[in-house]
């Protein structure tokens, strides 16, 4: 009889920090100690605290171990699993020196306390490769309820009443989308799941697919019933190998159980799902480009209308829902629209998953009710900025979004508020920057991305974003004039107004929002030829402060391009024509004799 279960994270983050080897070592040690009848190892999806990986949790005690190494495994098995003594040094503590008895249960830690897990509810709790574990968590019950007790109209009404809006970025009401497709009375329709998560820094869809793939399948079948479709496609990036593997396992298990396929629950309803792998083009996350790609063509967007709900995949009515959107749906069906709409704000209901990254202590995935403030997410849940640095801005919405400065930290997050302050929800990536980030360089990073990813079909995006990037290069190299800033702004508005798809229309957002909130940084680059954060290399100079230099020669030895010269015990000098501004001299100087301006 199993008395203890060890849940070990098998998400991409922990897998890359070695959780597979730890799982194997655990199994081995458990057999060695003869505990295989008493202790079970369960590989789950993402727990959310990726910064601390590999993580594991031991039930029933609920002990949370972080940053576990293979070498730690024998101690965990011998001490904890056999003798019941928690391995103090590996227990996740919120701050240094916290005593074991002071460590709160996982649900009470700052990171998890204010989270509300709906889309992520099973991530880190069940083994995603076992359909039975999903069923134990009320899985497929929503599908059963829909097929046996509700009409398609009822389902759509529940979705409308819940107020669920698309979690992929646009925020379009899901119930309305379904309704449009349902009104088209044709024999062939499609349900498509958009799992082509492409925003740099966003990984919530991956985590749902890896941690709870059946929730997505169940929701797609529910959507199929609601709109009258019997075929679904999941368009998922090939760069997500673990997600693809678990999806395929899940699809096969659901087919074996008859939860996909013909005559589901003996109701005469047929529904089946196939996966299609994307080749990693950002534009294929745009719905019309995604459909074109499934059809076997080059992934390029089309003008809307016609909207996919009327004329989509292979010319038939199609609904496209994002992974996170779908993951909410079985819960809404089971618990009701009112339950869901009781969370969130007036026009943005429910919860949203955010991927916290950048200059923040708790890098990871968090799910919070909409209406939570940025400050709560960054400081209470995210643990603030590491190294005592000062917060500068948070970027939301990826390459389509914008930067939000400190003065807006108390804004409750929802779709409309974010747009009002010049950003957008996007898929929920949240990149935190601190005083050492140059906002011009930051905007340039995103522009570099969109220029790379522009599909080239329309001119404003193909050429416009390229020109925009060149202007940013001019600024970061100190060659721009104030006139260039105005020209750049004008170009931004031109691209926004004229690009074909949402990717192009939103591409200038990172530039516009940094111009709006950090114009002073742009002006410092242009007028003073100076980068205030000390990032833009062309505007930087490393100098040796004569008085402080002891002539130890360390910097000269560390310099990769031999730009530093001088004799022993005499102040050294940097040859600015040779210097590549790598900063190696400054990092290595023991006397603080090198400055960066």
């Amino acid at each position, binding site marked *: 009889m*199993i008395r203890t279960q060890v849940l070990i994270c098998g998400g991409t983050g922990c897998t890359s920090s070695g959780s597979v080897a730890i799982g194997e070592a655990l199994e081995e040690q458990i057999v060695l100690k003869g505990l295989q009848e*008493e202790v079970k190892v369960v590989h789950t999806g993402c727990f959310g605290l990726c910064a601390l990986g590999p993580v594991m949790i031991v039930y029933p005690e609920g002990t949370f171990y972080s940053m576990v190494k293979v070498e730690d495994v024998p101690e965990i098995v011998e001490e904890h699993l056999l003798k019941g003594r928690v391995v103090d040094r590996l227990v996740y503590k919120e701050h240094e020196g916290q005593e074991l008895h002071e460590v709160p249960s996982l649900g009470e830690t700052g990171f998890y306390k204010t989270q509300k897990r709906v889309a992520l509810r099973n991530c880190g709790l069940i083994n995603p490769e076992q359909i039975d574990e999903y069923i134990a968590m009320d899985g497929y019950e929503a599908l059963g309820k829909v097929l046996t007790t509700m009409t398609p109209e009822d389902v759509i009404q529940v979705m409308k009443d819940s107020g669920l809006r698309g979690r992929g970025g646009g925020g379009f009401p899901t119930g309305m989308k379904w309704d449009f497709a349902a009104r088209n009375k044709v024999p062939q329709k499609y349900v498509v799941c958009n799992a082509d998560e492409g925003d740099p820094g966003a990984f919530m869809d991956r985590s749902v697919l890896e941690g709870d793939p059946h929730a997505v399948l169940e929701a797609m079948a529910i959507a199929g019933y609601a709109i009258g479709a019997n075929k679904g496609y999941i368009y998922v990036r090939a760069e997500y190998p673990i997600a693809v593997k678990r999806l395929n396992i899940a699809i096969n298990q659901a087919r074996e159980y008859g939860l996909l396929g013909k005559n589901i629950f003996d109701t005469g309803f047929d529904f089946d799902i196939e996966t299609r792998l994307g080749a990693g083009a950002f534009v294929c996350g745009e719905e019309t480009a995604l459909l074109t790609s499934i059809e076997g063509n080059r992934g390029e967007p089309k003008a809307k209308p016609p909207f996919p709900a009327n004329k989509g995949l292979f010319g038939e009515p199609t609904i496209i829902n994002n992974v996170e959107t779908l993951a909410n749906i079985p819960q809404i069906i089971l618990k009701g629209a009112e339950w869901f709409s009781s969370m969130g704000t007036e026009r943005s209901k429910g919860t949203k998953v955010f991927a916290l990254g950048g200059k923040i202590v708790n890098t990871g995935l968090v799910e919070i009710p909409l209406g939570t403030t940025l400050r709560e997410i960054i400081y209470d849940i995210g643990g603030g900025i590491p190294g005592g640095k000062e917060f500068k801005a948070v970027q939301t919405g990826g390459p389509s979004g914008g930067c939000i400065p400190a003065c807006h930290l108390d804004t409750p997050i929802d779709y409309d508020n974010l747009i009002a302050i010049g950003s957008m929800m996007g898929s929920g990536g949240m990149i935190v920057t601190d005083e050492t980030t140059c906002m011009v360089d930051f905007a340039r990073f995103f522009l570099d991305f969109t220029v790379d990813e522009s599909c080239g079909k329309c001119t404003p995006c193909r050429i416009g974003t390229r020109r925009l990037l060149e202007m940013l290069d001019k600024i970061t190299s100190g060659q721009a004039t104030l006139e260039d800033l105005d020209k750049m702004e004008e170009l931004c508005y031109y691209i926004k107004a004229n690009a074909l798809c949402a990717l192009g229309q939103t591409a200038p957002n990172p530039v516009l929002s940094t111009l709006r909130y950090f114009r002073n940084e742009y002006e410092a680059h242009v007028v003073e030829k100076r980068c205030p954060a000390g990032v833009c290399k062309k505007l930087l100079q490393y100098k040796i402060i004569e008085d402080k230099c002891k002539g130890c020669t360390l910097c000269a030895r560390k310099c990769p391009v031999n730009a530093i010269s001088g004799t022993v015990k005499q102040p050294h000098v940097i040859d600015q024509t040779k210097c590549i501004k790598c900063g190696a001299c400054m990092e290595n100087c023991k006397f603080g004799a090198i400055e960066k301006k």
Partner: protein
Amino acid sequence: MKSLKELQEIRDRMKNKVSLREGTNEIRIVVGMATCGIAAGARPVLNAFVEQVNELGLSDTVTVTQTGCIGMCRNEPIVEVFQGDKERVTYVKMTAQKAERVVREHIKGGKPVVEYTIGAMEN
């Protein structure tokens, strides 16, 4: 699978296997599993508790867990039962058979098995 009933059967069968992860704490049965406890036979006792709790369908409210040395090694295996505000009950010199009776009469029935408790033994 052709009916909701079959789905529910799988769910009920699996529920026990995942309920461990929900950390219910209404009643906690803690078995001393230090070297002394293990040497005195604490493992079969622990397993008997786990099995009996599941068999009687109590796993929704009862957590069976281990701890290190409780401090009275001569009385091992020692088992303590914690329940809300009630005073803890300490059982000593436990065996698998005694464990079954404790689950039946104390955990399910609500009446501690006085003759196995430390008070009875020490007197």
